[in-house]
């Protein structure tokens, strides 16, 4: 069985008398160590999938299994990064990154006594994203790109088995975004966590993912699962190769069909 397994999962949001079917009959699996991307028109329930997999929302129908267990509440120790970096302004970058260590077992218990060890670990991670000199700065002293790098570090410091990315590069300029794709890929190649990326940038999805899922308009259904057979590590040059471009076009066409009524 796959590491993450969704069987006929649906979700209905209820606001007063109004009900909205956000996600219908999603069935797919994510292998351990696989990196998938979910793309689709806006409002199609991409983020809903993330909340369902992590147990932040209970499904209205169907079943979500993670690591062989049925998801009932928020599953613990998941790494999460959103478009908004949500760093705490009263903590330095270092202390922001160490936050999961204060919450996730077994680190929580040894955090105080082994602090130096954890700081070293965080420094190593900061080095891979190129923020070594900014550990003692506050988030509001960093640029948007730097904040997002710190955010990724915080999501990864406790080496989660599952990493959830909800348009983490969406608010960045094109150069920074493409640079961070490389950073993200390097981190994944090193740690091999299971990754779920929600995005509306098709090039980003094809660059980073092993499998790209295309969703339909609301109510969201998965209409295409595309394996990306481009070897890794992928580079920016890869994104201009015909095969890469063909895949992006194929995905785009599929999404355009969704937009045309």
């Amino acid at each position, binding site marked *: 069985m796959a590491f993450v397994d969704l069987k006929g999962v649906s979700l209905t949001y209820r606001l007063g008398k109004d009900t909205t079917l956000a996600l219908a009959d999603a069935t797919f699996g994510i292998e351990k160590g696989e990196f998938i991307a979910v793309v689709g028109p806006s409002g199609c329930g991409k983020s809903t999938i993330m909340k369902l997999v992590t147990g932040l929302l209970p499904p209205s129908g169907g079943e979500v299994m993670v690591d062989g267990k049925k998801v009932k509440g928020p599953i*613990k*120790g*998941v790494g999460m990064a959103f478009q908004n970096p*949500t760093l*705490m302004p009263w903590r330095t970058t270092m202390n922001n990154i160490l936050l999961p260590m204060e919450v*996730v077992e077994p680190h929580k218990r040894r955090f105080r006594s082994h602090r130096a060890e954890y700081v070293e670990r965080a420094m190593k991670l900061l080095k891979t994203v190129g923020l070594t000199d900014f550990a003692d700065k506050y988030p509001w002293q960093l640029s948007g790109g730097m904040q997002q790098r710190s955010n990724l570090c915080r999501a990864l410091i406790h080496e989660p088995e599952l990493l959830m990315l909800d348009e983490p590069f969406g608010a960045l300029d094109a150069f920074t975004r493409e640079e961070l794709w490389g950073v993200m890929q390097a981190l994944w190649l090193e740690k091999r966590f299971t990754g779920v990326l929600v995005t509306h940038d098709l090039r980003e999805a094809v660059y980073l993912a092993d499998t790209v899922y295309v969703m339909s308009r609301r109510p969201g259904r998965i209409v295409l699962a595309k394996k990306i057979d481009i070897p890794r590590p992928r580079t920016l040059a890869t994104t201009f190769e015909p095969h890469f471009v063909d895949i992006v076009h194929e995905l785009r066409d599929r999404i355009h069909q969704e937009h045309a009524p």
Partner: protein
Amino acid sequence: MTDLRREALKHAMPWLFLAGLLIVWEVSCIVFQVPEIILPKPTKIFAVFFQRFDILMAYCWDTLWTTTVGFLLAIAFGLLLGLAIGASPFVYSGLYPLLIAFNAIPKVAIVPILMIWVGVGSLPAVITAFVISFFPIVVNVATGLATIEPEMRDVLRSLGASRLEILTKVGIPRAMPYLFASLKVAITLAFIGSVISETVGGNNGIGFLMLSASARNDAPTTFAGLFAIAIMGVAMYAVCAMVEKRMTRWAFRGEIVA
């Protein structure tokens, strides 16, 4: 004008305006021959202020400590209640309307009741200062808690944080700037509370001093008391503002960067 001078002038402006106001006051009193019993000249008030400095200080001290004790009680109680209201939707929907209703009561109306319960003296002043000043603290702390970004909460929940952990790691630090901002308002209210209580039913404090002076038609002393209250109020406000800046440096980030 150099930047430095400009800056110095900006800092001097409140004092210049104060001086201007006092001069206009003094001159008008002389020109229009205002009787001292109605509006004494500032020079006269200052003269009385220093003449009776010892007495004034003794009464001020009384007001100051009743205000401070009431204020500290308000911080402790306000913080706890604010956290409870901000953290739990049930406590919020249960208590918030009652708090609004309670806040709508003019606090001067409860002083007679307090006098029945605890008699005259310092205790009613402490209690009045407390009940009048805890409301803004509660509201601000609750607001700070209630406005945590949902994403921040999601990040912590998916790490496996308990409600208590979310409260201590995000809620309380986030509520701190709101708390300290409310202290400036609360301390001013606490002063109003204790002086009201002293005036309505006290036997001590600057409010009582002013009341008895005015009963003797001693306008200069009454005004000297007013000045003393103003000075205390401003001083306490300044202390609160300083504590605020100290404790929540990150919330003033714009000023630090600039």
